[in-house]
């Protein structure tokens, strides 16, 4: 990255839908490279920053996790509207992965099992109160909901792969991964 040439910092966002946050952990594992990164980017939205609403005019957004409920659906749309480049970040966003393992179950059965039969039983009606966002019938990979510009598979993607993808993106190139970098899982 050619830091000197850039006048304005690139507006970067990361979002967290239906996933385990592992991809964000992997992002943090960039370690000292994070310092290089933040010399050229400004983090405008992220689960690791305390910003409540998704801002406008974002250059690049990395989205972790699959679309599992109506909140995700709404956020995904906002992200698409407000970002120039959206990257599916990690296997859950790319394939549905572990999040989508519930696709074989009926939602009602699932909620009953989790909230009413397990330890720490929640009061019946919790999910109907509208406190919990409604689950969509099937967990979807992100590209089946919004248009995606790049894919970064891996569970989680290795920090090196993230670095590779992010640095090419910041150079204005499309995400292009070598064979060993595009493994699922």
């Amino acid at each position, binding site marked *: 990255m050619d830091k000197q040439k850039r006048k304005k910092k690139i507006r970067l966002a990361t979002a967290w839908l239906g996933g385990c946050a592992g991809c964000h952990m992997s992002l943090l594992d960039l370690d000292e490279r994070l310092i290089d990164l933040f010399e050229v980017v400004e983090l405008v939205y992220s689960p690791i920053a305390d910003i409540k609403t998704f801002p406008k005019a974002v250059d690049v957004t990395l989205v972790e996790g699959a679309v599992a409920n109506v909140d995700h*659906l709404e956020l995904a749309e906002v992200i698409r509207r407000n970002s120039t480049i959206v990257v599916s970040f990690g296997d859950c966003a790319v394939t549905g992965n572990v999040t989508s393992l519930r696709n074989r179950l009926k939602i009602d059965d699932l909620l009953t099992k989790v909230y009413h039969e397990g330890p720490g039983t929640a009061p019946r009606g919790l999910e109907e*109160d509208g406190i919990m966002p409604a689950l969509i019938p099937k967990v979807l990979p992100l590209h089946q909901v919004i248009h995606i510009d790049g894919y970064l598979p891996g569970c989680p993607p290795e920090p090196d792969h993230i670095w590779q993808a992010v640095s090419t993106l910041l150079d204005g190139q499309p995400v292009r991964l070598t064979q060993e970098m595009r493994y699922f899982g």
Partner: protein
Amino acid sequence: MNREELQVIGEREREKQQSYRCRILCCASTPCLSSGATAVIETFKEVIKEFDLEAEVTVTSTGCMGPCSRGPLVTVQMNGQQDVIYEHVTPELARDIALAHAAPEAKPLDRNVLPADLPFFNKQKKVVLANSGLIDPTRLESYVARDGYSALAHALREMTPTEVCEEVIRSGLRGRGGAGYPAGLKWDLVRKAPGDKKYIIANGDEGDPGAYMDRTLMESDPHRILEGMAIAGYAVGADQGFVYVRGEYPIAAKRLENAIRMAERRGLLGSRVLDSPFGFRIDIRIGAGAFVCGEETALMASIMGRRGQPWPRPPYPAQKGLWGLPTLINNVETFGNIAPIISHGADWFGAIGTEKSKGTKIFALAGTVETTGLIEVPMGISLRDIVFEIGGGIPNDRQFKAAQTGGPSGGCIPTDHLDTPVDYESLGALGSIMGSGGLVVMDDTSCMPDVAKFFMEFCMEESCGKCVPCRVGTVQLHRILEHVTDGSATLDDLDRLEELCVMMKETSLCGLGQSAPNPLLSTLKYFREEYEAHITNHTCPAGKCTMFGVPPLQLTRDLLRNTLQAKNDTEVS
């Protein structure tokens, strides 16, 4: 039995027929049986007995006469008079018919008579079905009386195997199973294949929904197929044949079995055919309900008692077929053409049809058309003639929309191309195929994406599962079509649909997968605006599909809105 004895049998049978003043022929193939032909035949027999007409009037159960939707059908032949065909015959009517024709001054009834100049009959040319509806398929003599087995006798005595092959090549006969490979070339390949054990297979596994030509042929004139197979056996040097009959056709199987038994008893099949050194046996194999077994390698797997999965070609069956031995496999209709070709010569046959598609083709005309049934037409006839002349047009004042040929492997042909001549090349150019001969006419109440979905579902359920493009491709295509017909698809889906279709056509292992996208591609080509109406306007122009009106994701968003509303309400209260 030798050739002379054969002629004597034929002569005697003809004399016997002439001795009756009145011959009543009743159609006893499946469609007429299911509309009550049995009771009609019984009535005729009763009346004859009641009025002591045994010496003058005879009743015969025959094969198909053609216009099945008008069944049960009855033909009355009187010496020196034109045949009269009655439609929708009930037992009551049968009684009247018998009495009217048996009377000394016989006069046909004025009810339920099909006019002799009906375009349904005039526009047809019967070669393969020449005997259908005129002979009793359960009696060998009936077939012999119409020169049956004379072609076999001729071939055995006057021709060498090479000459038989050459005659078939010269006739220009092409496979009637769908692909239209020149039959003679195939025969020659098998003849030249090394080895002294070879097989003949007649493919009667007619799986196309909406097609029943092969069944009718097997039911109406089983000996014709056996004779064709025996000639083929002689030509290629095979001594064993199999007829593979679709499991849904019990009557066809039974009549074939009966025919084989009779032919064997008379020495027309067996170790010495017509007292010649040539020996040929035929066995029947009953299918068990798998469309893919119409594909020749899958069919052979099924004959060998295995899962009906195709295997990659080459090697072709002509080199390595049943049990690894050279095998000639043709459709039953192809075999039905052989005896006339040998009897009348290749030139006679070549004069019928078009330059590249010789002879006639049998079609099962079905769908929304006035007269449905079985027709045999010269190749090159226009679709318009078939639909509007022979079929009598579209009933209920509706509009013609498309003609579907070739079943799940074929395509839909729109109004603009109604004047296309029906031959292998022209149909191929339109993205359809001749196929085995199903022809389903659709009026404007048919929704094309829905029709495409119907065929894709068929292919999905019939895919054997061996190769990936067909096994998964059909499922994915069907899924996308479901989205189209419920209004939740996007225009991107259309591109994906097309791309996947082309990929499946080129990469699938066998004919099923390679042709499965045809109905979809052809409807997409000619009725794209209908697809787009489903996608962009969420409406079905034909009024067939139930639409969500909005994509499911949108629905989910509405759910979200309600949820948010509920959230706000709670906060307020």
